[in-house]
């Protein structure tokens, strides 16, 4: 066990740092200095810049366009990206469907999809939740009926992040209603331009259009776009979930917020000084930063285990659980730091709060979703209890036996 960096690691850090500094366009740099809040176009621009360098998917195997870096290098790379406040790339292709295809896709699927995920030429969204299938995901009802070489899809997905900007969607659909509800689920890839697929963005608490309702009416998806066997979708979903949970704790985002809250405290006048002079505020902030260190260490341990070839297991649930709670706490502290300015909202005139703080209340509101998306934190706890602690299924989760059908008494 060793947590020290070698001279080679230090040199690598320098290389990453100077690359980022040189590669950021003036536009992206300005947004980064204002504390993030990048447009879709800026994020995709950054994706292309990283892809050109060969750095868009550090965690992928080299043969598929990964970097071949070990966990230490990936950690350093990530730290430098956070440090520079660079845009975070969309996780749906690089972090989720990409690794799944590498694991379960056919050679044709890999050749067709992976290169364009790497370059960012095609962006992805995730079609999992439905109006009546949230935490109980396996109850999903999006119908897929076989017809010739296609599946014909009818139904609705919701909470499809950024579907309005996405080229492709990976989704779970129902190919059978027989047997266990998990057994009739199939994993498909669909082109968002398919006739019959329509994404309608809706406003979230953050005041932005981050999610869509996505409708399917007689949308035809080739069977060749199925990943894994028909009825094997639940297995795919579970494999993908491990990848999702490691990235979804928002550890980098929390780090960015922590440094912004610090800056905000220093720039918020209070009497003759600033909020930074308030010891009780500093102690609250210090406590969260220390908690963040503990979480970052848990994250390294998961990364290191992954490097040794262990797939991210149910342990990664704690990253999601603790990470999103911490993220919310940091945003809550940010609003406390704003004080009466915590009412600032999108579109306020410049100068009412520091530039970098203009997005804070929007993100604070949006991030209420963090403990809900990607499997709510309560679901993460269920996963920990079942998969790690081996506790019995709760009564509320047990399949209730269907009562025997008896002939109705005939009224005489």
């Amino acid at each position, binding site marked *: 066990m060793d947590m020290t960096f070698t001279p080679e690691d230090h040199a690598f850090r320098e290389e990453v740092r100077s690359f980022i500094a040189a590669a950021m366009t003036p536009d992206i740099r300005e947004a980064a200095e204002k504390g993030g809040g990048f447009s879709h176009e800026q994020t995709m621009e950054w994706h292309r810049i990283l892809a050109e360098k060969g750095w868009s998917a550090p965690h992928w195997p080299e043969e598929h366009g990964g970097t071949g870096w070990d966990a230490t290098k990936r950690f350093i790379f990530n730290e430098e990206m956070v440090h520079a406040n660079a845009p975070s790339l969309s996780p749906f292709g690089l972090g989720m469907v990409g690794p799944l295809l590498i694991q379960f896709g056919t050679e044709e699927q890999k050749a067709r999809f992976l290169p364009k995920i790497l370059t960012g030429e095609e962006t992805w969204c995730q079609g999992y939740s439905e109006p009546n299938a949230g935490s109980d995901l396996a109850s999903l009802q999006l119908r897929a009926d076989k017809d010739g070489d296609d599946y014909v899809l009818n139904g609705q997905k919701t909470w499809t992040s950024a579907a309005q900007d996405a080229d492709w969607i990976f989704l779970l659909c129902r190919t059978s209603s027989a047997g266990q509800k998990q057994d009739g689920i199939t994993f498909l890839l669909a082109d968002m331009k398919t006739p019959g697929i329509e994404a309608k963005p809706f406003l979230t608490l953050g005041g932005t259009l981050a999610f869509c309702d996505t409708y399917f009416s007689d949308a035809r998806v080739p069977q060749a776009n199925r990943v894994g066997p028909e009825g094997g979708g639940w297995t795919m979903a579970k494999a993908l979930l491990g990848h999702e949970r490691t990235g979804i704790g928002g550890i980098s985002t929390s780090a960015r917020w922590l440094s912004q809250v610090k800056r905000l405290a220093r720039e918020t006048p209070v009497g003759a000084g600033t909020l930074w002079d308030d010891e009780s505020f500093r*102690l609250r902030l*210090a*406590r969260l930063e220390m908690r963040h260190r503990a979480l970052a260490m848990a994250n390294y341990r998961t990364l290191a285990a992954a490097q040794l070839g262990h797939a991210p297991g149910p342990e990664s649930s704690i990253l999601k659980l603790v990470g999103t709670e911490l993220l919310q706490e940091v945003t809550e502290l940010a609003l406390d730091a704003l004080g009466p300015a915590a009412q600032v909202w999108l579109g306020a005139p410049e100068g009412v709060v520091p530039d970098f703080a203009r997005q804070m209340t929007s993100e604070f509101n949006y991030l209420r979703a963090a403990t809900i998306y990607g499997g709510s934190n309560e679901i993460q706890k269920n996963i920990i209890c079942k998969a790690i602690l081996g*506790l019995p299924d709760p009564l509320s989760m047990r399949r209730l036996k269907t009562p025997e059908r008896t002939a109705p008494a005939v009224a005489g």
Partner: protein
Amino acid sequence: MDFELSKEQRMIVGSVATFVKEDSPVERFREMRNDDRGWDPVVWKQMGDYGWLAIAFSEEDGGIGGSFLDMALILEQLAHGLVPEPYIPSVVLAGGLLARLGSAEQKQRALRPILDGDASAALAYGERQSRYDLTDCLTRAERSGDGYRLDGEKTWVLNGHSADWLVVSGRTGGSQLDREGLSLFLIPADAAGITRTPVRGMDGQLTAFLRFDGVEVGADALLGTEGQGADALEWAIDRAAAAACAEGQGLLQQMFSRTVEYLNQREQFGVKIGSFQALQHRAADMFAEVELCKGTMILAALEADSDDAEKRRAEISAAKLQLSDGGWYVQENAIQLHGGVGVTDEQDVGLYFKRLRVLQGLFGDADHHVGRYARSSRFVGAAS
């Protein structure tokens, strides 16, 4: 970076685990709660023979040349059996200071016997008013002939009741709160003028209040440079905090796994209580806190060997905070989920609970470490 234990480390962990299981399960600790010494010199010698006391010391000091982490792994395992032998006071605190400051002769005199398991030691630094401020010291060490004369009182001295050797902080200059003028002395515990009052703590372990009334020591008692003991003292207490995190980790593991076992075994309303979601979700949160503690404990142990004092303090403070806050969540729920039996002395879970609560208050509590972190340049940055 590398997060795997080495083959040697896995072997040490295995042998300590076997020792705890076969020779020092919690039952032995229960017996020792009624013993005047509270621990067994025969077992101490055995631990010395196994090399467990000397592991983190250099070969020239009579050690094995391992790392602080090796030692932390041993402490973590010993905690499973609540092994009461005075490891932290003798080895981490007094032993650490002897290795860092001692002359060859002082090491020969005191450090060797400690590492071999032939003697035990204690560090007497805290006073009634000092709380966690290590430089707050009223005990005077005035020049007397060739040596010094000590007057004052030290409180809550771990293993103070039975130590052969005492390392004592005393003021050779400056006033109560000054960093300058703090000196450390190596004194045989049976020196004339020392009065020891044993105090048994809630964890069943013994400490002592020590009075020094005109205790005369020679010039060869001085450890390191006169008046310059503060840095070394802080270093030693930091390492003790890291050691407490390691021991605490072992306690947490036990409390957690016993709680999960209990949830899987106890039945109410005709079902295992572990099937109740209200309890499950607490167990899941406990699991998360235990895992976080494990990570910070490892980081703290790795940094305990570091020369970068700023980094060492930051990681150790973060670990001690996690042990206090995260640990508290685990321990309070360990009792709660055990229900009524969790509050009986018969169940081991309560013994782990008490020991952990004592560790949380030693070497700086959560507020102390948060305050220290908040003042560090790491937190404040270069700007201020």
